[in-house]
């Protein structure tokens, strides 16, 4: 039996006190010091060491903001001196896209390598913009392996990166064409180049090492490789600047390189292929309303991989009315299918991938795989406070992080994401991630459900496109 892909995770507790959503506070001056203090009855033992840790940095604050929120102590205190309050620090985490909830759930996954689980149903909004306006389908009967949870490992999350023939040519019963170079990635997630403000200490080495452990790829700036900071290894994708083709020999060994789109991109690709014909050349382009046209053009001219870069919130990189990746990817995928050339080009999408579910939804919309950067930094406890952009001290001392510890946390995050991909693929009745690409039949879009259900009953929707 072939070895099954599995990401091994190990607990990696946070170095810094995580920011909790809420906390319990008490007005001690009213405390009657009764002998049946509700704190002793805390089911989660948060108050166990209160007396000893009251004056320490950790400890007291630990239980304040790590409270599970059962409210038993608040409601049972004889004097009613306890209350629960929202933590203002929590609300300041992240931004409107990388919400505090996304950040804390990412921390949990990096800490534990586990899927976040909770009871009491779903408490979020009905739907939202972008990926939050997609639901994935499920099957009442079909399960890929028909073996419940114990067969989930048979679900294949691998995807291919590279060009494929639309048909094979045989002469005298033998294959007459050489196969194109193709890379197999065990999960549809690779690591994008880390923005320079976060390129500090062991962050990028940890990303490289984690990619290597998982078997995926990490994109690294070519200048850093040329400067000898990183060596070209199996899982590194050098990001070259547009001025090549006279590229440094140091990049020749790379299995895949990435170059920005340009007028001369075909000759750039030819120059790179001349040095290593098996090297895959990915073209990095910014997402815009022109993307579909440009990608069709590139595919027709033998470009094998496109890396489509959205902004951090998953939008086109244009100033007015940028569309979300959800719509852009569907347009591109649809255009390539219409031309009959979809398999001739691999699409990597990056930007706005914040959760495991976004990977699935981006692939459903038409990407072959995604590339991520910010979630990796959040896994390393980053709060997206952007203090570093102003040369101020990082509250979680990213530049001091130990490489192996950072690798552990990144691997944990991707391990948890991998499990969630399997959950969603399994529910959809999809046995392999390759089959998910563009499979919008396994999903439901907000505007379609609204139109099919409520427009029929209540007339036209006021916002015609049903968008958020």
């Amino acid at each position, binding site marked *: 039996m072939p070895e099954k892909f599995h990401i091994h995770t190990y607990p990696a507790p946070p170095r810094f006190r995580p920011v909790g959503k809420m906390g319990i506070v008490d007005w001690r001056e009213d405390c009657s010091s009764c002998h049946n203090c509700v704190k002793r009855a805390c089911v989660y033992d948060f108050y166990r060491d209160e007396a000893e840790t009251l004056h320490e940095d950790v400890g007291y604050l630990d239980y304040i903001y790590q409270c599970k929120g059962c409210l038993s102590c608040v409601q049972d205190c004889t004097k009613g001196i306890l209350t629960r309050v929202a933590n203002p620090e929590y609300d300041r985490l992240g931004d409107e896209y990388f919400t505090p909830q996304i950040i804390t759930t990412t921390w949990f996954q990096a800490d534990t390598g586990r899927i976040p689980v909770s009871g*009491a149903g779903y408490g979020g909004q009905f739907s939202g913009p972008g990926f939050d306006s997609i639901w994935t389908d499920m099957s009442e009967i079909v399960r890929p392996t028909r073996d419940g*949870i114990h067969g989930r490992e048979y679900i294949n999350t691998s995807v291919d990166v590279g060009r494929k023939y639309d048909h094979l040519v045989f002469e005298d019963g033998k294959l007459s064409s050489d196969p194109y170079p193709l890379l197999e990635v065990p999960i549809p997630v690779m690591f994008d180049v880390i923005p320079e403000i976060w390129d500090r200490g062991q962050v990028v080495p940890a990303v490289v090492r984690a990619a290597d452990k998982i078997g995926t790829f990490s994109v690294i700036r070519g200048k850093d490789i040329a400067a000898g900071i990183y060596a070209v290894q199996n899982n590194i994708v050098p990001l070259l600047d547009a001025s090549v083709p006279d590229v440094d020999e140091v990049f020749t060994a790379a299995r895949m390189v990435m170059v920005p789109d340009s007028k001369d991109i075909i000759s750039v690709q030819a120059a790179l292929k001349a040095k290593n014909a098996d090297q895959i050349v990915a073209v990095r382009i910014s997402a815009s309303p022109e993307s579909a046209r440009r990608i069709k053009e590139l595919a027709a001219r033998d470009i094998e991989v496109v890396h489509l870069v959205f902004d951090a919130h998953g939008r086109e990189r244009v100033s007015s009315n940028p569309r979300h990746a959800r719509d852009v990817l569907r347009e591109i995928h649809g255009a390539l299918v219409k031309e009959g050339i979809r398999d001739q080009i691999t699409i990597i999408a990056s930007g706005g991938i914040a959760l*495991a*579910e976004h990977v699935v939804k981006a692939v459903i919309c038409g990407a072959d795989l995604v590339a991520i950067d910010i979630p990796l930094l959040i896994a390393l406890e980053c709060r997206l406070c952007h203090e570093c952009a102003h040369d101020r001290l990082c509250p979680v001392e990213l530049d001091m992080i130990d490489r192996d510890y950072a690798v552990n946390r990144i691997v944990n995050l991707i391990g948890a994401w991998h499990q969630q991909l399997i959950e969603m693929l*399994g529910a959809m009745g999809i046995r392999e991630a390759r089959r998910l690409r563009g499979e919008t039949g396994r999903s439901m879009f907000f505007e379609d459900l609204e139109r099919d259900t409520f427009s029929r009953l209540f*007339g036209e929707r006021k916002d015609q496109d049903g968008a958020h």
Partner: protein
Amino acid sequence: MSATSITKPATSVQPPEEFLSQPEYAQVTRKVRPAPPRYRNEIGKYSVYRANNCRRCGKCAELCPYGVHTRPEGYGLLNRPFDYRCIGFDCEKSDHYCIDACPQGALSIAANPCFETLGDYRWTADLIVSTWQMAETGRPPHSFLESELGDSEGGFDKLRFRFPVKPPADLRREDISTEVILNRRKDNRPELKMDVPWYGGGMSFGSTSIYAILSRARTAKAWNTCTCTGEGGYVDRLIPYADYVITQVATGLFGVREETIQRAPIVEFKYAQGAKPGLGGHLLGDKNTPSVAAMREAVVGTSLFSPFPFHSLYSVEDHKKHLDWIAHVNPRALLSAKVSTPVDVDMVAVGSYYAGAHIVHLDGSYGGTGAAPNVAKKNIAMPIEYAINRVHQFLVDEGIRDEITVIASGGIRTAADMVKAIALGADGIVVGTGELVGLGCVRCGNCESGRGCARGITTTDPGLEQKITLEWGTQRLVNLYSAWREMFVEILYRLGVESVSALRGRTDLLMHIDYENDGSKETA
């Protein structure tokens, strides 16, 4: 219905057998009795403070009609204000506003910061606290609490009723029927009529405390409706309520035996569930205590994962064989197929009908009480608001709508949601989370971890489950059902609809505020 005595919260260990042996509790009624919160400091919208300069004149206690200020008979001191009953600044213009009336100026009122932290988009703090209030009093909550709408910005929260200017003159509230018939196939099986258009959803022994389970069963008996065992097996303690207990056959087949199937008026096949559509149920190891393990014939402390889907089910034909099996084992049972809401949910419902189901139970994606991966709860399968009308219309088009009962669940929180779901096309509703909130759930979501629910509801921890007594739990739910029914009837009265069956599919009584047909033209 009148309040006669107070049901005390849990104070001591109380084995259910002992409780059931007491003759006064052997029968359960719909009688509403106050069932105060089991915690000292119930959370309300406002905090009322009484300062030290209070002279204990008792004027506030005399004035307040809501019971915020009380002085026990024979005592000089007043109780600490029951501020969760305070209606807040709505009281300001009345003649009993305690803040202004206090001769010492000793009283003050402020928004309760704890209330602000309660709830979420779907179950807002208002909905939680109003449900608590209904479970305590058995009456609709005061209008200072929003008890109809959540804050999810979609689905039920955007649907509104299209009330006529006046209900029909000959319609009386007391004549409005809330009965629902569950068997419409006109076969030789019982019709099964419920007095209210909802029944309790499946919550297994293992996921939920025995006191919560029995409280739900007793309430079902009182209101002539049903509750469901969930997939954890049929607990012997439920036998006295057997006529009101649906038993579930789920993929793990935990505790499924012929005698339990023969006992049940309805047998429910759980093909999928809204909390984790497309995934099997799971009970984490910590909650698999010796009694749970014995019921499930499993090893104590191991996590129990139910497979998905049924390993005996490969086709619609197999689905029919499943139902035939139960129909053969229990010739009087109704057959229910509980399914989630995939894109082709309408076809699933039709398939269930032709396989022989009396009930198709649609469980939408946003509901559920049990532990589930967050990624599944949020993303997999469609919300119930979409599914109901699709299924209803498809069954109508197929000409079989009046031969199968459609039950909806998954995020139905209030009486208003129930009316909306039925107007969209359901025959009845399954409730779950609402009942747990009635028992004091704060929706902290920690049901699955460690010893389970710290509030004693979804736990099998011997210590924690003592936080609820059977008497208190039953009364809370009896009260909640009473309040829900009163609110349900009031909405039907205002809509001018005389029965649940007349309400079904009446989408003309609804409007959606995001659509042109939002009622604004009528009100303009």
